[in-house]
């Protein structure tokens, strides 16, 4: 099966690691994710704060580009998924804004009829790829740093993957990430703030507020005795890393690795950390930290 892939701008820049892991994991799974040709920025939470029609049109352009193929459009970024879904809903429901979107697209020679399906990566992995299929690839090799059993992984969903729309998921107590964690042989460490906000763009516009909000989440994961935090969102991942970068509580030996969902899956599948972009984290030595944890937690599993 082939799918169209919408990386979103973050995955080309600060979350390049996430992008690399998506590539590596799907390549190993044998599933083709074809990057949507000539995609543009979805606008995220910024353009809509300036100009509503433009925001919806930017998102809709991608939907229009995807439509002719009839393929589903998968995106790893919750914010992209939300904006694409919002634009999709507007077009499907019809009305004034839908007409404006169509008019703007037509100016560039594009049409959109509302038939593109947009999926976000986490839900896609659980429902389309399936945990069973992922399990088949989980390696029991005695390759240090690749095996996750014995580790407690905290599933951090964040906001936009469950609110305002919870696609095949419970908005207050989502479970898709727990399912993936458990399928990989690790222990899920759900924590009270697993759907709380990391602050999003406030990390840039109100740094202190952003740091405070992200630190609350880190504290909550620590209370749940998490070894690793897995994130569904490139900005959440960056924010949780930044909160550690500037906080001596977490510096040094106690740094909490923040992995993207496919980085976690890739490790369990036996893909080398380098290929999964673990070195792209602003926290240095993530791969080594995980290896050390592994040595302490489950020496038997890694044969040493």
């Amino acid at each position: 099966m082939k799918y169209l892939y919408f990386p979103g701008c973050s995955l080309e820049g600060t979350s390049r690691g996430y992008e690399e892991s998506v590539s590596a994991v799907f390549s190993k799974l044998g599933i083709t994710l074809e990057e949507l040709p000539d995609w543009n920025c979805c606008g995220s939470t910024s353009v809509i704060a300036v100009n509503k029609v433009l925001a919806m049109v930017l998102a809709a352009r991608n939907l229009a580009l995807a439509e002719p193929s009839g393929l589903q459009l998968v995106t790893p970024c919750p914010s992209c998924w939300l904006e694409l879904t919002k634009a999709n809903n507007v077009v499907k429901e019809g009305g004034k804004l839908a007409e404006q979107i169509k008019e703007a697209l037509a100016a560039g020679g594009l049409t959109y009829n509302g038939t593109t399906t947009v999926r976000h990566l986490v839900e896609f992995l659980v429902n389309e790829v399936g945990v069973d299929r992922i399990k088949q690839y989980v390696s029991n090799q005695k390759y240090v740093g690749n095996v996750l059993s014995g580790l407690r992984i905290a599933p951090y969903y964040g906001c936009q993957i469950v609110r305002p729309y919870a696609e095949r998921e419970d908005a207050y107590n989502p479970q898709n990430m727990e399912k993936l964690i458990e399928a990989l042989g690790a222990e899920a460490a759900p924590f009270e703030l697993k759907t709380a906000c990391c602050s999003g763009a406030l990390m840039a516009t109100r740094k202190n507020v952003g740091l405070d909000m992200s630190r609350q989440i880190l504290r909550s994961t620590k209370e749940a005795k998490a070894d690793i935090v897995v994130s569904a969102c490139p900005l959440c991942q960056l924010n949780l890393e930044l909160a550690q970068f500037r906080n001596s509580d977490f510096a040094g030996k106690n740094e909490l690795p923040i992995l993207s969902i496919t980085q976690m899956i890739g490790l369990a599948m036996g893909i080398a950390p380098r290929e999964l972009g673990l070195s792209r984290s602003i926290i240095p030595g993530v791969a080594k930290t995980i290896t050390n944890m592994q040595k302490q937690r489950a020496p038997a599993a890694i044969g040493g």
Partner: protein
Amino acid sequence: MAPRIGVYVCHCGSNIAGKVDVKAVAEMSKNLPNVVVSREYQFMCSDPGQELIRQDIREKNLNAVVVAACSPLMHEKTFRGTCASAGLNHYRMQMANIREHCSWVTEDPVAATEKAKAIVAGTVGKVRYLRPLAEREVPVIQSVLVVGGGIAGIQAALQCADAGYKVYLVERNQSIGGHMAMLDKTFPTLDCSACILTPKMVAVGQHPNIKLFAYSEVEGISGYAGNMKAKIRHKAAYVDFEKCNGCGICQEKCPAKVPNEFEQGRGQRRAIYTLFAQAVPNKPVIDRAACTYFKNGKCRACEKLCKRSAIDFEQQDGVEEVDVGAIILATGHQVFDASRMPQYGYGKYPDVYSSLEFERMVNASGFSQGKVRTSEGKEPESIAIIHCTGSRDQRYNVYCSEVCCMYSLKFAHLLHEHTHARIYNFYIDMRCAGKGYEEFYDRLLNEGVRFVRGKVAGVTKDARDASEQGKLIIQAEDTLTGVIRRIPVDMVILANGLESQKDSGEIGRLFGISRNKAGFFIEQHPKLNPFGTSNNCIFIAGTCAGPKDIPYTVSQASAAASGAITLLNRKNALLEAVGAHIDADMCSKCLTCVSICPYQAISMDGEPQTVAVDETLCHGCGTCAAGCPAGAIEADNFNDEQILHEIEGLFSWENLPEKESEAELVESGAPKK
């Protein structure tokens, strides 16, 4: 005999005359064919107005009357009575609605007057062809069926029984008492609920006029106004109620323990059990799914121990039919399931309790013997009560459940009595509208309860302060001070809203009663007849008609009882005179009418097979006449002849030739004596 029609155009004060030129309408009417007198008057429904009609009927030998006024729903009965009292068959009177259909809905006075003229002309055209009809009287069976044995059903049953009528009270649980039996104290008097309820329950159990069908359900209803047959299924209890004397030894010795629904799952009961200590009837039933014998063939301890040999594992469901003249539905409510609001932690955190769970906890005969303790057995230091759980909410129930503010205050008071805890009530509005209710609120204010006006956004264990460790933290905005508050508590009590029973749809279909969007039964008129329904032999009482407190429930139950008694007391009921008639020669037996009749009044039988309408069941709605593809069915007052002449009349009002005949236009004023 030639038609002699009188037309009466009502001003209705300024309701009609303010928009429609009533004099012009009366003027035009004079010239309509067969009209011998045309009048306009201020208020036709008044005594002098009606006297105008009576006098004209007598003096001018009218044989048909048109009253151009308000909706027939208002005064059809009035004017029919007027005509009948003057000796004219009341079905030869037809109202022309020039108020709700004309003056009240038309902007332009000229257009309104023209429309009024058309309506009157049409009605005059039709009334010439109306046939004189008569209602049939049928005797009303002198007994009442009360469905539901909560306080509403109990009150209604006692009222009817005391009035001397036979009552069949059907309750699906093995004891009557309903939700009120679960409560500890009742607001605002703080009467012990069981203490005020049980005397009534006992009265029901002992009343010679009440036959109590406990552990039973109504399965079917058939019949017609005042003559209904109810099929009641007595579920198999595996206990012979006649033999059992309620000694209770079977319950003591039964080895199987399961969660007790009466204690909301927080306590346990046996497989053979009575609902609660003061149950009426005080007979146990066996829960098949929990019973060791039914599950794997062993035990039978209860049978061995029972000195009256009342245990009967072979017992089958029993079915009985009763004849009744009136029915009172008092099927009650269910409580909102707070697990639908995960942000409150119900079902996730053991110390979040629903309203009924707390009633049972604080009740001396409940699972905690009246001691208020956390799930770990400790005395709570602080407790939060959350109002509006599931109510006033677009996602769950949009309405206000009426009783929750009051019972939340009651909870606060009980907690104040039973504990030394700090008590917080979180509310959006404080609704204390009944007698003594606002005073009760003041009492609570003076008991030191901390009130925070802010709907709780969530209950969390995420502690942000040393004082919050290990507690349930309430997040709410104190809207009156404008400050965000985080309040750590040991226990949370939710004020769950009231909802319609989940099978209210099936009950509605069984009895033919409509429900509103929230599933509550719809009353005949929300203001003037809140206890009647669209069926004049079926009444509703209690929370099945909407959330309400106990005084309103009891009042409504007595009102429903009075409705039933009134019906029975007249001994006879009048059947609708208007009906449908099938022309057998034109009928092709397609049976379309049979399936579309809402009253199941049409059937095909006999030798040779004929399709016919049962006059007693027929309500004259006309659905069959409209649906018959062959046009073989005629509905009284709406047959082809009548309708076609009405249509003709609608177009005939312009350019009428002046009549020279005896037709007179009489100016408004009092009738000549």
